[in-house]
């Protein structure tokens, strides 16, 4: 349509005016945009800049190297071992199945390892490296490295893992580490962020657990740049953490290994204590287990085998086992009696072989009786009736107090797991525990270390040490932490009458060295090395009348679980005591026949700081001992190579 020039002009004018409005509003909008840009980029730029930094910079923790554990001579008991693992990164691997096939042809890979690696890769983003195999031998690492071009995405990596070179010999003392469990986390109020690291391991038992804070060290950090998907782009800087402090134990690993080997085949424990410092030279419990199994993650069958074993290999019987101390408790009663002033050292009791208390007949182990018995003879020949009578004169509370002073029924501060307190019962205890009044029969039972009395092997060793020194010797398991020597356990004089102590020690000497002493068969004959000891045989359960009728008269006729515990305590040398030793053989039978020889052998090893000369033994035993020493040496050597190989 043709438009007249006038209309064209009118249109152009109108468009010009309206364009001005449009242009002006557009300009206003551009102004708003520019102003917004300025305020965001210039005025608030710093805020956004720091937000951007927070966005891309991520702190990652670096696990510190765990502190090492040594024995008193610097022999490593817990170390960090370098091991190699083979990892695969999916996004670099190309055809994952094909690559893993080639890897499996090259190194030893189980189908399970391959499957679990594939499963983990499927779960995680393509850039996350996944472990295919752990603890790969060096040969395989070399093969992987050499064949790298054929194995895209696969690399060998070095890591640290805990290793216990002495294996099972120190398992109960040193303990072991394992991955952090939810239960562990729930126990800690303010968990160390380190615990969140996947596969981070913490101490689960023993020194590893008790000194976890010291051994763990503190986390290092590295700052890394990540993208929105969490992928690491590069490392910006890192601050190394502080390695955990090393711990030196008072344990003498050679003696410890000897003790473990000597206990082989028994369900038993040995404690060797240094009287000068309270150092625990050996704390051995048999049977034992390989702590390295736990570090790797113990298999179901292995775990069941350990857990269901009736000899309880996982239990540290030295501190967890609480046994009726039997006759080894008689020194406590003797000291309580003498200290009470109610009984003199030479006062005698008549032993007809039994005594009647409240209508119940209590027997002496010697049916025929001992006749007139004073304190010395009562210990030497272990007369029960003497203690039945004496305990009634002094009362249970005096006995319990003396027990606690000598270290039975009290807590000892040793960094091991589930340390038992034992029981030194008194009237108050029974009221609290059972809500019943203490009866005289309880006192009679307690006087020979039966009834409610319970002591751990550690407590028995402490008792022996305190009797030998008159000081309140305290057990010391850790010699130094991070180079700082721990306070000595030598202790202060306890204020016990030295004359009484001397008499008790002399009686203990005769237990071991007099013809009629119960421990004469396990004596030491080397001059200046003789030991003073006391046997104990504690009943787990009385032989019932019915059983007696069936002809069950001796221990050997009973099932293992119901046989007597064999106990022994001693110190040596008698003249100048250096070590206190306790031995408990669960359901082992007689203390003097089963426990005493073990104690003798371990004591001699401690005294000679190695295998003792055969001359230290009575001549009739030397051939058998020589045989035994050879066997144990082989055993120790074999055990060590076995755990080193593992």
């Amino acid at each position: 349509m043709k438009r007249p020039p006038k209309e064209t002009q009118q249109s152009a004018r109108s468009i010009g005016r309206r364009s001005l409005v449009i242009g002006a509003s557009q300009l206003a909008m551009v102004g708003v945009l520019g102003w917004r840009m300025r305020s965001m980029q210039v005025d608030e730029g710093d805020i956004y800049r720091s937000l951007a930094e927070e966005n891309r910079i991520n702190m990652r923790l670096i696990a510190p190297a765990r502190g090492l554990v040594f024995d008193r001579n610097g022999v490593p008991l817990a170390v960090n071992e370098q091991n190699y693992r083979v990892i695969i990164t999916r996004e670099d691997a190309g055809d994952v199945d094909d690559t893993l096939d080639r890897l499996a042809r090259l190194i030893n890979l189980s189908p399970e390892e391959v499957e679990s690696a594939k499963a983990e890769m499927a779960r995680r983003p393509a850039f996350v490296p996944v472990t295919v195999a752990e603890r790969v031998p060096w040969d395989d690492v070399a093969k992987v490295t050499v064949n790298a071009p054929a194995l895209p995405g696969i690399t060998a990596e070095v890591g640290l893992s805990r290793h216990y070179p002495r294996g099972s010999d120190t398992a109960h003392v040193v303990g072991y580490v394992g991955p952090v469990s939810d239960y562990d986390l729930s126990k800690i109020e303010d968990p160390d962020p380190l615990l969140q690291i996947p596969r981070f391991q913490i101490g689960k038992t023993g020194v590893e657990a008790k000194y976890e804070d010291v051994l763990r060290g503190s986390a290092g950090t590295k700052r890394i740049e990540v993208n929105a998907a969490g992928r690491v782009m590069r490392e910006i800087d890192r601050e190394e953490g502080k390695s955990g402090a090393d711990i030196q134990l008072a344990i003498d690993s050679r003696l410890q290994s000897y003790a473990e080997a000597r206990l082989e085949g028994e369900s038993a424990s040995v404690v060797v204590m240094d009287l000068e410092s309270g150092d625990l030279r050996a704390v051995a419990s048999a049977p034992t287990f390989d702590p390295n199994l736990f570090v790797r993650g113990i298999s179901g069958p292995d775990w069941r085998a350990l857990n269901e074993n009736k000899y309880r290999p996982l239990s540290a019987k030295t501190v967890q086992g609480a046994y009726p101390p039997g006759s080894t408790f008689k020194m406590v009663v003797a000291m309580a009696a003498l200290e009470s002033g109610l009984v003199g050292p030479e006062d005698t009791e008549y032993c007809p072989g039994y005594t009647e208390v409240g209508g119940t007949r209590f027997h002496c182990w010697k049916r025929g009786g001992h006749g007139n018995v004073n304190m010395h003879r009562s210990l030497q020949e272990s007369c029960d009736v003497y203690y039945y009578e004496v305990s009634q004169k002094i009362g249970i509370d005096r006995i319990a107090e003396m027990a606690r002073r000598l270290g039975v029924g009290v807590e000892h501060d040793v960094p091991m797991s589930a340390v038992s307190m034992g029981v030194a019962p008194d009237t108050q205890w029974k009221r609290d525990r059972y809500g019943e009044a203490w009866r005289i029969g309880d006192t009679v039972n307690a006087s020979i270390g039966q009834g409610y009395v319970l002591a751990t092997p550690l407590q028995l060793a402490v008792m022996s040490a305190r009797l030998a020194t008159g000081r309140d010797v305290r057990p010391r398991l850790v010699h130094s932490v991070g180079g700082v020597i721990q306070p000595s356990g030598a202790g202060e004089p306890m204020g016990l009458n030295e004359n009484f102590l001397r008499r008790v020690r002399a009686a203990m000497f005769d237990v071991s060295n007099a013809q009629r002493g119960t421990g004469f068969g396990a004596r030491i004959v080397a001059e200046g090395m003789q030991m003073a000891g006391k046997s104990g045989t504690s009943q787990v359960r009385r032989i019932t009348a019915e059983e007696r009728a069936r002809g069950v008269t001796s221990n050997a006729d009973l099932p293992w679980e119901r046989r007597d515990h064999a106990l022994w305590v001693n110190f040596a040398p008698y003249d100048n005591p250096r070590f206190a030793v306790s031995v408990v053989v669960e359901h082992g039978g007689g203390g003097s026949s089963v426990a005493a020889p073990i104690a003798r052998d371990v004591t001699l090893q401690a005294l000679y700081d190695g295998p003792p000369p055969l001359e230290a033994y009575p001549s009739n035993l030397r051939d058998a001992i020589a045989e035994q020493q050879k066997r144990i040496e082989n055993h120790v050597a074999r055990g060590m190579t076995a755990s080193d190989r593992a």
Partner: protein
Amino acid sequence: MSYLETNAKFVPTGFRKLLYLNWPVILLLAAVSSFGFLMLYSVAGGSATPWMEPQVKRFGVGMVAMLVVAMVPIWFWRNMALIAYGGSLALLVAVDMFGEVGMGAQRWIDLGPIRLQPSELMKISLVMFLAAYYDWLPLRRTSHPFWVLLPVVFISIPTLLTLAQPDLGTALLLLIGGATVMFAAGVHWAYFATVIAAGVGTIYAVFASRGTTWQLLKDYQYRRIDTFLDPSNDPLGAGYHITQAKIALGSGGWTGRGFMQGTQSRLNFLPEKHTDFIFTTLAEEFGFVGASTLLALYALIIFFCLVSAVNNRDRFASLVTIGIAMTFFLFFAVNMSMVMGLAPVVGVPLPLVSYGGSAMLVLLLAFGLVQSAHVHKPR
């Protein structure tokens, strides 16, 4: 026969037309596109693939197409307006029925080698058609209610169709682009005032009624509106993108972090960093200086277009230029407002900079019309 055709003998012909092209606009378009190439190279981590290279090729094709369109007399395009509008509308309907679903919305139609976005095409077609309508309509009828209602229907149909896809950004562009042509054509301002007042009133009523007995929308609808208007209510969903975009933009500071040094885009914090959110990368790496330079370039393109429109005495040529300029303006204004947190995220690309073939081609064709209008005026 319009004014121009009667004066056709004064219009440049043959190769002389090249001299009369709106060269400042061409240079500005090239400059803006170059910004785009640079950013696409950067967001790909310093690589021409996968984005910069195809974008450069498309720019080349688009420039040639623009020149071809520019060489064709403007009255030819005016005569094509109805066909263009009808065709685009048909494609839009087709897309609703057979279109492929991309990015959660039905937008594409697959024509063998080219994947076409009819809504893009509609942006020009609508402007062309409305300009032609007002060129045809006698001036005195411009504000007559019936002759106002008619273009409102022309605008509403494609707007509602794109809204149904749903493509809020394009619907908004069609609505405002069309309204701008009506406004420029001289429709009485009272109509606009009424519509704006009614719109504001409705919005006010919707919000004012919230929580009262006569509440106009359901509660969940209000919550959706809340999130749409202020994505920070939903920091892990819709809010995440906009928060990251603002961080990128703000952290650019005065001069930026340097080319290819932007951590937000480099480290993949930014969503759609090569398309709708490319401006944030630019602002992060070149700072306020770079971002405001781009804004100024855009503003200059609009300025030269408006100058060309005002100086053109042909009604269709002027209106089509103003309409296209407004559409172009809306592209970058909405996109920038969106990434700067001034407007909700509606999915509008940054014109000529964001990666995308359909949008770039259509925009350059539109500028072909602007050029044609500029060339074919009597000297």
